[in-house]
C-alpha cells in the first residue's frame, strides 16, 4: 500500500514542506489521518482551523457543522485537491473514493462508461474495468440502466451512478461531500440504506458530510461536530447502534436522544 503525503500526487506547483507521518506498528493504522491540518485560502479566508482526527478501518465518521465552516475544504485536502496550509494528511490515495455534492457525470458517456471513468483514468485494462463497472452498477441498483445517458436519469439515479464510479477503485477510504442534499427525503433514506450496505459489504472507512443530523446518526459509527469558520472539532459522539441498521431505528428513543445532543452541540457551534 502506498501512503501519499497530501498533495504529493497532482502537482509540482504545490511545494510541500511537511513530512510523511510515521507509521506505527501498534494499533491498527488509521485509514485516514488528519494531523494539525488547517487552511487559509490565498484571499485570506481562514476556512479551517487546526484539525486533527483519525478515521480507522471499519469506522464511518460523519462531520456536521455550520455552513461555510470548512467541511468541504477538509475533504478536498484529504483527497489532494487542495493543499493544506499547515499539517499533514495520511491516506492511501490509490484507493480513495470521493463523491461530490453534484453527480458530475460526463454527459456524453452513458452510465456504464461513466462508471468506468475512474478506473480508466487509473489505467486499469478494459476488460477489468468493464467487469468492475458492471458489478458496481449492480451494487447501487442501476442494473438495466447501463446504456442510459445522464440526461435520461433522475437526480437520485445520477447520485447512484456517481457512487458506482467511485466504487470501481475499490476504495479503502470513502469521502462523501453532502451527496444526498438535493434528493427528496424518502430517496435520501433509501440511498442511506444503500450506503450502509456498501459500507458493510466493502468494509471501507467512511468520512461523510451532511447537514442532516438524522442522516449523520443513522449512517455513522461516530459523529463529529465542527465549529463555525474557521472550523475546528468541538464535539465527538460515538454512535452505539449495531449494523445492519433498520430504518426503524430512526424512531428509537436512544436515536432521538443522541440526535438531541448533537443538535445542542451544533447550536453551540453556531454561537
Amino acid at each position, binding site marked *: 500500500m502506498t501512503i501519499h503525503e497530501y498533495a504529493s500526487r497532482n502537482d509540482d506547483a504545490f511545494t510541500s514542506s511537511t513530512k510523511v507521518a510515521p507509521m506505527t506498528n501498534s494499533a491498527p493504522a488509521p485509514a485516514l489521518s488528519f494531523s494539525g491540518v488547517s487552511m487559509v485560502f490565498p484571499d485570506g479566508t481562514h476556512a479551517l482551523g487546526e484539525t486533527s482526527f483519525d478515521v480507522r478501518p471499519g469506522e464511518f465518521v460523519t462531520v456536521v457543522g455550520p455552513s461555510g465552516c470548512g467541511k468541504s475544504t477538509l475533504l478536498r485536502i484529504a483527497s489532494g485537491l487542495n493543499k493544506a496550509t499547515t499539517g499533514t494528511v495520511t491516506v492511501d490515495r490509490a484507493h480513495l473514493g470521493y463523491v461530490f455534492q453534484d453527480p458530475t457525470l460526463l454527459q*456524453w458517456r452513458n452510465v456504464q462508461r461513466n462508471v468506468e471513468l*475512474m478506473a*480508466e483514468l487509473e489505467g486499469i485494462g478494459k476488460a477489468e474495468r468493464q467487469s468492475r463497472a458492471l458489478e458496481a452498477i*449492480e451494487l447501487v*441498483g442501476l*442494473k438495466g*440502466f447501463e446504456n442510459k445517458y445522464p440526461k435520461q436519469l*433522475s437526480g437520485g439515479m445520477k447520485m447512484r451512478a456517481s457512487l458506482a464510479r467511485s466504487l470501481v477503485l475499490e476504495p479503502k477510504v470513502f469521502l462523501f461531500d453532502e451527496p444526498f442534499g438535493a434528493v427528496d427525503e424518502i430517496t435520501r433514506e433509501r440511498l442511506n440504506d444503500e450506503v450502509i450496505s456498501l459500507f458493510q459489504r466493502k468494509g471501507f472507512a467512511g468520512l461523510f458530510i451532511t447537514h442532516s443530523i438524522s442522516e449523520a446518526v443513522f449512517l455513522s459509527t461516530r459523529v463529529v461536530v465542527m465549529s463555525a469558520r474557521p472550523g475546528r472539532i468541538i464535539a465527538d459522539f460515538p454512535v452505539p447502534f449495531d449494523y445492519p441498521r433498520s430504518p426503524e431505528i430512526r424512531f428509537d428513543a436512544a436515536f432521538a436522544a443522541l440526535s438531541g445532543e448533537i443538535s445542542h452541540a451544533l447550536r453551540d457551534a453556531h454561537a
Partner: protein
Amino acid sequence: MSLNVSVAADEPIVDPGAPASSDRSGFEWSRVIGPAAVLVIFVALWHYMHSDGMRRFFDKPGFLLPAPETVINDAFLNSLARSKLLTGLGWTTLVALTGLLITIVVGVSLAVMMAQAKWVERSTYPYLVALQAIPILSIVPVINSVFGGGISSRLFVCVMISIFPIVTNTLFGLTSADVGQHDLFTLRGASRRTRLFKLQLPSAMPAIFTGFRISAGLSVIGAVVGEQFFRKGSKPGIGIVMENYRQKGIYPQTYGGLILAAGLGIAMFLVFGWISKRVVGHWHESARKTT
C-alpha cells in the same frame, strides 16, 4: 449479486428497455409550415416588385429584377444556362468544402492551443478579430503574389472569412466543462492530454458543431467572393458565371445563380446540423431542439 433489494424503486422513471423518450419520430408540421409561409410571402413580394414595385417606388424598369417564373424558366429550364450554372456551382462547392475543411483543421487546432496556454490566446485573439475587418479587396495583390491567383487564393479567402466562428466556438466549448468534472480528472492525476481528449474535447462538441455550421455558410460566401478576384486556372465558379451574365445584362440567369449559391449555403448548414445531431444529439440537451 445485488445487495439492493428494492432496485431503484424510489424512482419509477423509465423502463430500461423502452426507447429514450427523446427519440421523437413524429412529423412536425410547424417545421414545414413556417418556412413555407415565409417562402410564399417572399416570392409574392418579389413578383410584385418585378411587375409594379420597381417602377412605383424606385422609378426603375422591372427587368432589373426579373420575375420568379422568368428566373426559373431562363436559368433552370434552359439546358445551356443550367449546365453553365451547375458547373459553376460545382467549382464553388469544391472550393467552399475544401476551404471549410482547412478552416476546421486550422481553427480547431488553434483553439486547442489557445485553451492550453493563455499566452497563445492573448497573442492571437486580437488578430483574429482584426482578420474579420480586413476588406479582401485591399489585399488582393498580396494574396495574388503568395497564392498565385488560382484555386489556392480562393481557398485562402475562404479560410480568412470563415475561421473566426470556429475558433471562438471551439475555445468556448473547451472551457465549458465544469470545475467538478475537472476535479475528477485532477483526483486521478490525469495528464493534460487525457484531460483534453477525455474531458475538454468531448464536452466542446456541441459548441464546435455550432461553429462548423456558422462557418459552413461563411465558407460559401468566401468561395464566391474569392472567385471574383482570383480567376486564374479557368475554373469559373458560380460567382463568375453570375458576373458574366450580369455584365451582359442577362438578369434572369444572374438571379438563378444567386438562388443556387444560397441553396448551397443552406445545404451546408443543414448537413452540419444533421451531422451534429448524429454526433451529440443522444447526450446533448439542446441538440434536438435546434434545427
